[in-house]
């Protein structure tokens, strides 16, 4: 240990000879993806073998539930790893500061659409919601545009889209993307039109922040692969327990809940099921990863798609913990407007979907 080491490298975008070469990382990624597909192809034989080993009565409900669990757990975890890795790499091209710079001073309308789209790809964690909100508003991003970002970011994320795509099909995933973005754009636009800037907490209006200019080093392909691996470690490490719980709930629905009962409660004919699904979704704090196995089981049992999508949107976009965090920057009135506008948007999606897709 020596003290007073002289500066080796100054911060700045000069290439660093000590950086690892990119090609081993790219080759490693290709090998890992090949291994992934190999494992994924073995899921059905694997789950059949495991279920056959267990002393379960053939054709029983318990066997059905266990089969769902044994098949879905490795499947969802494998998919999650792939999707999160891919998005980790994509997200290394974006940062909240860059997104903010893109959105500052934007007009409403187009700005709302840009914000919702950027909300999908910008790295965002709900623990950062307050600094992000204040950082956006104080840098001149209009309030409604900020809300479009804040609604889209947790609702239409890579985990939700990737898992929906893989478990329920591309049509549902695409629909969720389109309607989720629509809710974020329209709700943000309405909040912007209402001109509620005066309903922010007073300290937020007083913040006159500059915008930090961060030193941008050279980002190599190796760095991007590492960003993907970090994302997997971070996100999968955080949500795996939720996923197992979600799959267990899905397995229970799959094995034990009669299809007629579910159709009566969540079927297309029960008009009240959409608002009920939204109300039920708000206090539930799960993330997309935990809720999608449940969604898969519900759809399998004949629940109406609009109702299920509304439930999922309510769980992800209107969670109680996020509201508690946002309360630090929004007055109760503005928070109520936020919940009301987003809730109505989700209701509209649910009803529209059930009416359109028979």
């Amino acid at each position, binding site marked *: 240990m020596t003290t007073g080491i002289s500066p080796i490298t*100054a911060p700045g975008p000069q290439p660093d000879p000590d950086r690892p070469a990119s090609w081993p990382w790219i080759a490693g990624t290709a090998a890992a993806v090949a291994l992934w597909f190999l494992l994924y192809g073995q899921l059905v034989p694997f789950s059949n073998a495991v279920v056959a080993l267990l002393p379960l009565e053939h054709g029983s409900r318990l066997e059905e539930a266990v089969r769902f669990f044994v098949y879905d757990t490795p499947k969802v975890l494998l998919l999650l790893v792939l999707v999160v890795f891919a998005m980790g790499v994509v997200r290394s091209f974006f940062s909240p*500061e860059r997104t903010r710079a893109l959105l500052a001073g934007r007009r409403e309308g187009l700005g709302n659409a840009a914000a919702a789209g950027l909300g999908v790809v910008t790295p965002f*964690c709900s623990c950062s919601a307050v*600094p992000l909100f204040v*950082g956006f508003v104080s840098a001149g991003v209009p309030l409604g545009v900020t809300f479009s970002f804040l609604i889209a970011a947790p609702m239409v994320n890579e985990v939700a889209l990737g898992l929906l795509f893989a478990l329920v099909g591309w049509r549902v995933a695409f629909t969720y993307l389109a309607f989720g973005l629509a809710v974020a754009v329209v709700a943000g636009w309405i909040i912007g039109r209402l001109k509620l800037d005066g309903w922010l907490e007073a300290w937020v209006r007083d913040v006159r922040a500059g915008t*930090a200019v961060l030193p941008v080093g050279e980002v190599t392909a190796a760095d991007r692969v590492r960003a993907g691996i970090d994302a997997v470690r971070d996100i999968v490490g955080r949500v795996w327990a939720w996923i197992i719980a979600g799959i267990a709930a899905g397995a229970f629905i799959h094995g034990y809940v009669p299809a007629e009962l579910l159709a009566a409660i969540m079927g297309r004919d029960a008009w009240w099921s959409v608002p009920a699904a939204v109300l039920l979704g708000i206090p539930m704090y799960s993330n997309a990863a935990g809720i999608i196995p449940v969604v898969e089981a519900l759809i399998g049992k004949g629940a109406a798609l609009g109702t299920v999508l509304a439930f999922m949107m309510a769980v992800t976009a209107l969670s109680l913990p996020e509201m508690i965090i946002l309360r630090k920057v929004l007055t109760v009135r503005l928070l109520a407007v936020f919940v009301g506008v987003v809730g109505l948007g989700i209701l509209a999606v649910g009803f529209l979907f059930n009416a359109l897709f028979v």
Partner: protein
Amino acid sequence: MKDVKILGPGCKRCQTTAEMLRAEAERLGVPVHVEKVTDYAAIAGYGIAATPGIVIDGTVVHAGGLPKTDDIARWLTA
């Protein structure tokens, strides 16, 4: 003495960032004074939009996510 400020509302990542910084400073033998800034208005005043943020001697060097150890060493020795 380097003046280091960790900007963040006290989430787990901010704690980890502070620990990483202290550990790296100790490894390099750079004397540091680490201070946590948890007030939202103060954090926003630095112009960052994601936490944890790191400010060294008044300059924002990092925002959002855990920093890399190599980068910490570079900032501390710069």
